[in-house]
């Protein structure tokens, strides 16, 4: 395991060979505009100050790093700390990025934002930010996801956003992104695409990572305070990979810290039954480097380069591509990636509810399931930080069907 300085991406938006910018020509100008606006904002201390204030007063940062006493005792192995992103306003880490980009949009002078959403958490966060900043907001969501995350559809509409159902492909996150990109390419002058994960063309993976890295920065200070040392293991679920990179980033130079990304193993290892892009070592088939929705990364696809459909009980992990920085971290061996099944995730959600009084989002439950699976092989004094990316209210329908 090697430590690497987080010197990525390079000027072309590359993380090693991954990343880049693969878009219709019409989108090059707005991407360059966004890159310039973001560089200017980063250089302006008033931008960070304003964002910090919003994160604190509106979103509720810092989030606690809570010692999970009963869970740790139950597993009889590692000391588990939970980073409570579920306590944020709107109920998931997605608000960190939505506030950051929302503030950027007001500086760019655009009055309309477009977003995609899978689980609905990014859609709710974006709708919230739009309401707060007085922007109009259109959210694209696959009709399959609208069905299984109905509560969030209602929340977005209550917040004044227009929610547009997408009925193509697998009617999930990938298809919502296609439709959001089509809207953006048509309305480039007036609209900003507020992408919700470390996906898409450069500079999105960098911008979203930068707005999420506060998770790891806080956790690093909090664990030092609580335990007087670095953690041994970080663990987070990976849809596009924003909550995971948000936790990992501050620890990248710490060679002793092991990082584990957990993907959706769905209901089987054959292509179409899962959303495991980097966990091929566990037998999941169909992932190869390719280009999807603006970036070069590991993509679930068939032999001819057609993108595969995916399955997960968790809408937020149900996507055939993965953030390019994760592809690079996997290739470097700096982070490892595995997958847990639908059933394991649901079981983990129940366990956390009963032992800690926290109902996690099904996405976050995937990370927890991996902790449970590994605990017997971990040392008693091993320090684990689990990123609890969101709360489970949105998943009551699904959970009630299983429980």
């Amino acid at each position: 395991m090697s430590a690497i300085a987080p010197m990525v991406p390079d000027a072309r938006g590359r993380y090693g060979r991954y990343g880049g910018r693969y878009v219709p020509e019409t989108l090059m100008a707005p991407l360059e505009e966004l890159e310039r606006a973001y560089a200017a904002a980063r250089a302006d201390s008033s931008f960070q100050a304003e964002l910090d204030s919003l994160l604190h007063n509106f979103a509720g940062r810092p989030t606690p790093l809570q010692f999970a006493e009963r869970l740790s005792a139950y597993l009889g192995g590692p000391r588990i700390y939970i980073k409570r992103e579920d306590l944020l306003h709107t109920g998931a880490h997605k608000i960190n990025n939505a506030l950051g980009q929302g503030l950027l949009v007001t500086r760019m002078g655009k009055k309309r934002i477009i977003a995609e959403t899978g689980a609905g958490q990014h859609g709710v966060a974006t709708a919230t930010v739009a309401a707060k900043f007085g922007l109009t907001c259109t959210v694209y969501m696959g009709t399959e996801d609208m069905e299984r995350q109905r509560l969030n559809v209602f929340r977005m509409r209550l917040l004044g956003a227009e929610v547009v159902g997408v009925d193509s492909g697998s009617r999930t996150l990938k298809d919502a992104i296609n439709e959001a990109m089509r809207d953006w390419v048509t309305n480039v002058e007036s609209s900003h695409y507020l992408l919700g994960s470390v996906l898409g063309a450069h500079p999105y993976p960098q911008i979203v990572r930068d707005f999420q890295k506060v998770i790891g920065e806080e956790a690093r200070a909090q664990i030092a305070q609580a335990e007087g040392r670095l953690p041994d293991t970080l663990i987070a679920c990976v849809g596009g990979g924003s909550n995971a990179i948000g936790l990992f980033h501050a620890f990248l130079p710490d060679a002793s810290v092991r990082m584990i990304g957990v993907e959706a193993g769905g209901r089987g290892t054959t292509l179409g039954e899962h959303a495991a892009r980097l966990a091929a070592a566990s037998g999941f088939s169909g992932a190869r480097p390719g280009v999807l929705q603006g970036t070069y990364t590991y993509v679930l696809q068939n032999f001819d380069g057609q993108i595969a459909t995916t399955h997960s009980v968790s809408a937020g992990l149900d996507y055939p591509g993965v953030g390019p920085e994760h592809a690079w971290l996997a290739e470097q061996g700096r982070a490892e990636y595995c997958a847990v099944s639908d059933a394991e995730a649901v079981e983990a959600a129940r366990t956390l509810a009963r032992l800690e009084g926290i109902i996690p989002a099904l996405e976050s439950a995937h990370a927890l399931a991996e902790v449970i699976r590994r605990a017997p092989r971990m040392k008693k004094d091993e320090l684990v930080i689990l990123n609890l990316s969101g709360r489970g209210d949105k998943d009551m329908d699904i959970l009630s069907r299983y429980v």
Partner: protein
Amino acid sequence: MSENFATWQSALAVQPAGRIARRFRALAEAGEMGLVAYITAGDPSLAATEKIVLAAAEAGADVIELGVPFSDPVADGPTIQRASDRALRSGTTLAGVIELVRRIRANSEVPLVLFSYFNPILQMGLEKFAAAAAAAGADGVLATDLTLEEAVEYRAALQAHGLDTIFLAAPTSTDARLAQIGAASSGFLYVISRAGVTGEREALPADLPALIRRARKFTSLPIAVGFGISLPTHVTVLGGIADAAVVGSALMAEVEKAASTDEAAAAVAERIRVLKSAARTGVSRRSSEAS
């Protein structure tokens, strides 16, 4: 004299006169605007596409763009999305489309451009793709979601096999980008009429002539204009300012409606005859205005 000869020779080396260049030269000599027809390959089958393409060429299409269907066509509107969907359901692959090029080439000299998203090309392998496409008789390639910045190896592979590299220029492209796009393109420059996805529209944007004039400053290549062109009046508007009009969704809407391959081929051919006739009169009207 010898200097002239050298210049002429190097010009030839840079731009081998392929079918596309020859067709545009012939159009210029005849004082006609060209018509480029986009057809999604494999909708509803590759055998049907073969008939439709031959009928389109027969009816006066100057260049055919064969659309390679893709699962996630982000640059396309509903009509071509549905066409791609049907083509994928009929089992169409990039290899199958290249084989279709070979069959069309056996019966026609119409210039053929492969119009694809990048991932299928990347998965086949750039070199393997370029060699196969050239051997089958394709003349050029346009990859919708491949910008210049990411196209270095792609251009080298295509050029090595004598294929034209056609890039898109958009209303949002800066002058600096237009210059680079012009320099990297061969065959023709494809100017997108408006920011947006493919699909039929009522009217062309008012600032389109200015965009075409701006693009002209940076290239001597013929300029084809596409996105939103379906009616003879659209083509007439382009008369004298563009070298060709591209029609796509309007043709695929005919294919979608048709009850049989023969009906689809006939309907596409009729559309092309009408548009091509507007392309001819459009230019002559401009010439008479100019004189």
